């Protein structure tokens, strides 16, 4: 179930999760963010299923428990969005090596626009696309050990929603390098008021 906030809609990605990219130090073999089985350290990330605010934007953090799926590996899936006027789609995610690809935004009018989704590498690195580092961890989990001096990064990125029309759904790219942990749509209150005013005239 999507959670609605005054200015934001936190999407429920549970049915879209197809990968486990987070593990606890007691069981580092749980899941695998990348093909080598590296994972984010659960004990350095926000509470499982809790709401966490990153640079002013709330996100519903995914489950972290062993065996739980908690991220979307992009394979061209469609994500439904509560129809509404939005300015941005905020993302918590990371890429296996930096990547960028199109997300197709489908509007209630039938219009479709491609917009860029850009995410930097999850290895400790600078934000290639100017993202905010949402969580810069101190440890990387390997399938057989915890690496103390090398922390993965989860980024906060955003995708613009330029049309001042109701957004209905979005299609993710077919790009297995890109992983999404949470999505939040930021409402466009000014646009909503203006559209209501124009329709009343």
């Amino acid at each position: 179930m999507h959670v609605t906030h005054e200015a934001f809609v936190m999407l429920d990605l549970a049915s879209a999760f197809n990968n486990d990219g987070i593990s606890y130090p007691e069981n580092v073999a749980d899941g695998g963010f990348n093909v080598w089985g590296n994972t984010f350290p659960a004990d350095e990330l926000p509470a499982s299923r809790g709401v966490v605010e990153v640079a002013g934007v709330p996100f519903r953090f995914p489950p972290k428990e062993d065996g739980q799926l908690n991220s979307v590996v992009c394979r061209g899936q469609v994500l439904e969005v509560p129809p509404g006027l939005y300015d941005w789609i905020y993302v918590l995610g990371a890429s296996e090596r930096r990547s960028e690809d199109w997300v197709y935004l489908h509007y209630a009018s039938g219009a479709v626009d491609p917009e860029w989704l850009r995410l930097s590498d999850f290895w400790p690195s600078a934000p290639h696309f100017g993202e905010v580092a949402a969580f810069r961890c101190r440890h990387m989990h390997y399938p057989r050990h915890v690496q103390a001096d090398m922390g993965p990064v989860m980024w906060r990125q955003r995708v613009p929603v330029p049309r001042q029309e109701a957004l209905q759904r979005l299609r993710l790219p077919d790009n297995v390098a890109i992983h999404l942990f949470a999505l939040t749509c930021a409402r466009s209150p000014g646009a909503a008021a203006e559209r209501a005013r124009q329709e009343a005239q």
Partner: protein
Amino acid sequence: MKMVLSPITAWPHDDVASCLMTCIATVLARHGHDPRLVLGANWDFYYAPGDFRREEYYYPCRFADLARCIMPYHPLSSRWHAPASAAAGESEVKDAIRRGTPALVAVDNYYLHFRPAHRDVHAAHLVVVYGFDEEAGAMYVLDSTPPGYNGPLDAGELRAARGSGNPLDDRDTFFATAPVAHRWLEIEVNGPFPALTREWVAGVVDQNLRRFREAPPGPAFSGQDGLRRYLDDLCARAATESGDGAALEELYVVGWAVQGTTALHAAFLMTAGRLLGWDRLSEAGRRVDRLAHHWTALRMMGAHGLKAPQDMAPRLRHRAALLLGDQEQALLELQWLLRRG
């Protein structure tokens, strides 16, 4: 005797550039050059069928001289050394350091305590050795790849890493099986570098474009048409593989060299554009950066598709088509840039 070369600086981690690039960058920085403007000037595609080796520092070469392949616009040369023994390998590296030359030394991550793969996974990697302390029994090592290392290392540990047979490893099939064999790479700077001017950059771009458009005769895949044929061939092999993933392993390794070259060329165009006040050059660089990101998708599809290459083949073919289309546009943009300035 103790001798440690200075200054030696780590190249900031670029997630799509290999250890070969970061090691060369350290050598260039030691000579006072911006690595992006030297390593990134060349943009090329070349691959001779069957050439690839399972090493993180693999680079497909048109010429015997690696430096000439990677940095053809600068007076640099290189030589791979293949010492017959561990003692000879250590002695050669110390001699290079005595001459003031850092040595780019091949290692197996399995034996190095600072690599995450220590005592876990075999993989052929490259580090800079820039000093030694015979009394302490240490060699000075710089590794710019995260988590990174810079300082003295037990000489015996380095010897073990250099002498590894790098055996087959079921947890990293990309960079295992190529024996390390004490090899090391020497880069020589043979003269002053060209000044960064609009004219010089235009000449570099023009030569890169000619190589992309004029494929030489022979079996090698070269230029834009060679890239198309290589990706066609690779996708066809993936589509008919029974499941050993050989084509996709090759894609991951060969693709890293191509991706690194592409990303560094994007950095070259954008850096030169900024320094020269040439915005259109920076804009063309951003188009090239997009191609490096296509390579991320391609390589990761390869890595994730190892167990079911036939299933991945159609998606690979689609991504390859997108890459080729965008690359054609980037080439046209650069051609237009040369005409318009």
